[in-house]
């Protein structure tokens, strides 16, 4: 209770993941987001997947508008600030994820008719890859465009424990872990049940515990 209150008062996220890259003893796939440049840095984030196969020293990055290999995409990813690590997959699960991203990312980006707002954009890419590859994680509320489904769309959430119905004007996400999230013109507000947090369309996208 005290921790939750402290989070609310300080406006920060409790128990954020460390940005130290894991060892290369097994394959690793990570989902990260970073802020856009000013003045959008408080309200908009951009996602990238970092993939490093067992024994490799460099990371392969999958994202819209970038990509290639990098030494440390956890702490230094060009053009994007204040990175947040949302999820890490390791071992066999990461091998499957790496193969899926290698197969699915480039063709999807090639077909993308990019629209900065409301989507499809880089956050739509992040959400689509999570679902296509069966990776259970959530992009933050400030990843505007993650809920873009065209005129009308419905699906199981990326966390896998909820459902989502979306139009460009109004959308809703309901789930056991996800809680309740209302989307108005692409902006998200709501309550995340696990880990507990208030979902806000600002900063890291939540007030409370970091997502898991």
């Amino acid at each position: 209770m005290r921790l939750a209150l402290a989070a609310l008062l300080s406006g920060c996220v409790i128990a954020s993941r460390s940005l130290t890259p894991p060892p290369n003893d097994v394959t690793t796939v990570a989902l990260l987001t970073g802020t856009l440049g000013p003045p959008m840095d408080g309200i908009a984030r951009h996602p990238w997947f970092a993939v490093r196969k067992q024994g490799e020293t460099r990371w392969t990055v999958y994202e819209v508008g970038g990509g290639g290999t990098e030494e440390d995409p956890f702490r230094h990813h060009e053009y994007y600030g204040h990175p947040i690590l949302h999820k890490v997959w390791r071992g066999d699960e990461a091998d499957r994820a790496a193969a899926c991203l290698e197969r699915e990312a480039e063709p999807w980006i090639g077909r993308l008719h990019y629209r900065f707002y409301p989507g499809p954009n880089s956050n739509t890419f992040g959400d689509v890859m999570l679902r296509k590859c069966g990776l259970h994680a959530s992009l933050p509320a400030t990843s505007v465009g993650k809920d873009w489904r065209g005129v009308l769309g419905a699906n199981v959430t990326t966390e896998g424990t909820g459902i989502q119905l979306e139009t460009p004007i109004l959308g809703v996400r309901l789930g056991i872990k996800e809680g309740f999230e209302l989307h108005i013109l692409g902006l998200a507000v709501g309550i995340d049940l696990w880990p507990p947090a208030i979902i806000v369309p600002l900063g890291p996208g939540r007030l409370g515990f970091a997502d898991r």
Partner: protein
Amino acid sequence: MKALIILGVLAVSSSAHAERWQRMMDRVQGGAFLHYELTGLEAIDEPGPTQTPNEMVLAGARLHGFLGKGASVAYHIGADLFAGSTLRGAGFAYDVALFPVGIVVRFGKTSIIGFSAGVGAIGAVGTIDDAVTVPVEAIAEIGNAWRLLARARVAYVAGADSRQSAAPSIPFADELDAMLGLRFGHHYDDHGFPTGNGYFLGVSYRELAGTKFAGFTIGYSIDMAMPRRFTGNDNHDGHDE
């Protein structure tokens, strides 16, 4: 060879598109501001003759833009979308407005003072009758990193008898809504465009359904603009500030 032709066509069309965009950018200049706001209001006098709420919380966004040929005067449009609740009545409340007509005077880098008019709707389940409104609003956004944010709106109500002439302080309109805030933020001049952002704190005042409300607003504001270019249409010596 076919690929080369396609690439060539794409390059030419892309270049043409860029040129069109550049020509448009040369002809007009403008800017925009976005607010995320959370406002809590409490009744400060006895409720009016109708069943009015004692408290009201509204959260939402304001997105406004302005565009003109000159550096000092621009056409202004905007949209405000807010939803919330009348706390103890626990009724869903909403306050939305579109401003298709407006004018702003620009000064400084991104500062503006202006007026706009439009159409809106306000209501709350169980406490405030739903009604269409015709709001007329004056706005001011002055400063850069530290920025004064001010807004005053009077509204004429159609469709709810209980809300006619229901702003005690102003005989000429049915409702009044005002906010005065100060942003403590940042100013940027990256890539040749003046922009700014940051959190703000403000005081709010409202007269609605015969009751006066006062409270606080917290929010986040972003402003951005094209650099002001003085042309022959502007009464100025030809240089930006």
